[in-house]
């Protein structure tokens, strides 16, 4: 058993534990916090996969931004605190479906090997990504910026209190 495997197992456990906690905790805030654990674990996995830049982005965006947004969301809405339990039957159906799905996919991927490995990913990882982004993927990159802008504006409009529209509806 080499060190790499040990690290992987630890990261794996962190990730899964976070997700499990997220599913089983009862308070909404706790759930979000549990998920941070998962996000961090995933970031670790990225590092193992020679994707340092992605790992950093993961930590920044997910563990940082999205978690904060979610927390704000929780703050802005009213929560009884306790998560209401879903019906047993429905849970059972969904669970069996997912299990079936898991099993199928598991047997599909458990021995999957596509041959070679990339060996140069860790060399100037950020540079490589930057070059790729600004040459080959420059148009999608610009588009994504537009998407972000639109999402931003959209989110602001949606979340804003709309006095005028309500009046309009009444008339």
């Amino acid at each position, binding site marked *: 058993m080499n060190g790499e495997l040990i690290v992987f197992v630890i990261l794996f456990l962190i990730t899964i534990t976070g997700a499990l906690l997220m599913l089983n905790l009862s308070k909404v805030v706790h759930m979000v916090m549990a998920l941070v654990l998962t996000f961090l674990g995933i970031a670790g996995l990225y590092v193992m996969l020679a994707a340092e830049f992605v790992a950093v982005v993961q930590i920044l965006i997910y563990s940082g931004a999205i978690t904060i947004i979610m927390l704000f969301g929780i703050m802005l809405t009213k929560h009884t605190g306790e998560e209401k339990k879903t019906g047993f039957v429905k849970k059972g*159906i969904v669970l069996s*479906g997912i299990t*079936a*799905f898991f099993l*199928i996919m598991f047997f599909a991927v458990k021995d999957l090997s596509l041959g070679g490995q990339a060996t140069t990913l860790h060399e100037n990882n950020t540079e490589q990504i930057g070059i790729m982004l600004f040459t080959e993927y420059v148009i999608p990159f610009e588009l994504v910026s537009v998407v972000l802008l639109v999402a931003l504006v959209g989110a602001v409009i949606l979340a804003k209190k709309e006095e005028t529209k309500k009046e309009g509806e009444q008339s």
Partner: protein
Amino acid sequence: MDYVWLIPVLPLLSFLIILFTRPVIYKKAGIVGTLFSGAAFVGALIVLFSHLENGNFLVEGNWLSIHALTLTVGLEVNPLNALMLVIVTLVSFLVHMYSMGYMADDERFATFFGYLGLFTFSMTALVLSPNLLQIYFFWELVGVCSFLLVGFYFYKPEAKAAAKKAFIVTRIGDVGLLVAIFLLYWQTGTLELDGIFSAAEAGELTPAMITLTAILIFVGAVGKSGQFPLHTWLPDAMEGPTPVSALIHAATMVAAGVYLVAVMFPLFTASDVAMMTVAITGGVTAVFAATIALVQNDIKRILAYSTISQLGYMMLALGTAGYTAAVFHLTTHAFFKALLFLAAGSVIHAAHEQNIHKLGGLGKKLKGTALLFLIGSLAIAGFPLFSGFFSKDEILASAFSNGSYILFGLALLTAFLTAFYMFRLYFLVFSGERERNEEIKESPRTMLIPMMVLAVLAVFSGFIHTHWFGTFLGDWLETTPYPVLFSSIDAPYWIMILASALSIGGIALAWFMYAKQSIPRNWLYGSMKEVHHVLYRKYYVDELYRTVFVKGLYALSYFWSYFDRFIVEGGATAVKGLVSQLGKTGVKVQSGQVQTYSAVAFSGLVLVLLVIAALGGYFQ
């Protein structure tokens, strides 16, 4: 001969002309119809004489061919056809002329002549047919004309019922004929009379099949000729105008049944059972109808039953192999029965009354009509030297020589009854004193002349076939192209004497009862009330049919209609309910919750994956 097709076409033209110019032509329709039918009569005479010279004639063409099946149309002139042609066109011509007077006041004058034209066309085409399909074709068409004319006074409920009955009852018979045609086609591969007879002779048909088809054809004849048990329509058909009764329901169409059996005679003679059926049906009908005629009160109905009885007589003759006798009687009957009907029409026209007990003493006012009616009555009663005498004698001889003495007895009985009821009718209507004193005028000349012509024929037409002056008719009929069996009849003279005695006896009895009144009129009613009642109600046949067939049909129909409404529609409703239920289940799934939707979508995905995995899919 090549222009023989003109004979049916002329009346058809008359029909079409009148149909399309009805509002314009109106009263002239009578003249148009008479002219065309007169022309057809002249044509028929020419055909008759040219047949005497040149013999038989046949022309045929393709009508319809489908793969192996070929149906033809054609015209055939043989002795029987030529004779029928003359009878039909002559009576038609006379009836046309008569109707100009009789129908003068009717507002549908033109329509009436149109129908007459159509009938004459169908009837002449029928008697010229060389194959069974064509016979059936026109057989139905004459039925329809009869239906139209019986229902001519369409506003009268009785006429409506009678027309319907006439059509349906004859159609029952027609279906028998139709089935016979189908069977014969598949047995012999042809519908040509010629082909059928030669196939029958060559033994291509089994005896059972011959019997079956012959009897089925006879069923058709029974329906058309008003033989028992399909006779009920004919008395009711008297609701039509009287000239129609004379033309269709006395002289021509009803005789078509006899004609059909005569045409198919080679087939009948091949089967003893069929011959026996024909003879027995004829004999029974003759007596049966004659007994009913004894007690009826309506002048036309008596004549109608008399017609049924006489047609039964002809059937009896055919059944006992008396081909010539039957055709002979058909001819004479056509003349004297048409005469009787026209004379009756003249009475009705004058007195506006059909109940013989309310008539009476008309002899003084309607001298001409009375004389003509007397001639007709003498002829039908078989008074010596009148036409009926000879033809009846021929039939009696044929029945006698055939050896069936019961049938012979029936025929004698009928002869006696006929003489009696005809003179009961004559004396009740014409003798005695008229009680009421209203204006009664003799009919116009257009009506009297046709009757006179018929009277002459009723007296003298018997002489075309006698044992004294030569059997001209019989000899001529033997030139038929078909293998008809002519039995040589040498009947003893005492039959003729017996028949004359019976006829005179019947007349005398009627005279004593109704003219001299030395025997009480109501002896039958007085002494045997039940018998009188049964006869008066026509043996309750109508009632029986109404209960069994009409009610039965209603019961069946209602049963199926309720079955349709509740069981079939119920099934349909159940199917509909099932579909609605499915729809409702679908609605329930549409809860509006995104999670449910995605869960369903996801389960779909899982199912697809499962199927792929189970089938091996792309993972192998």
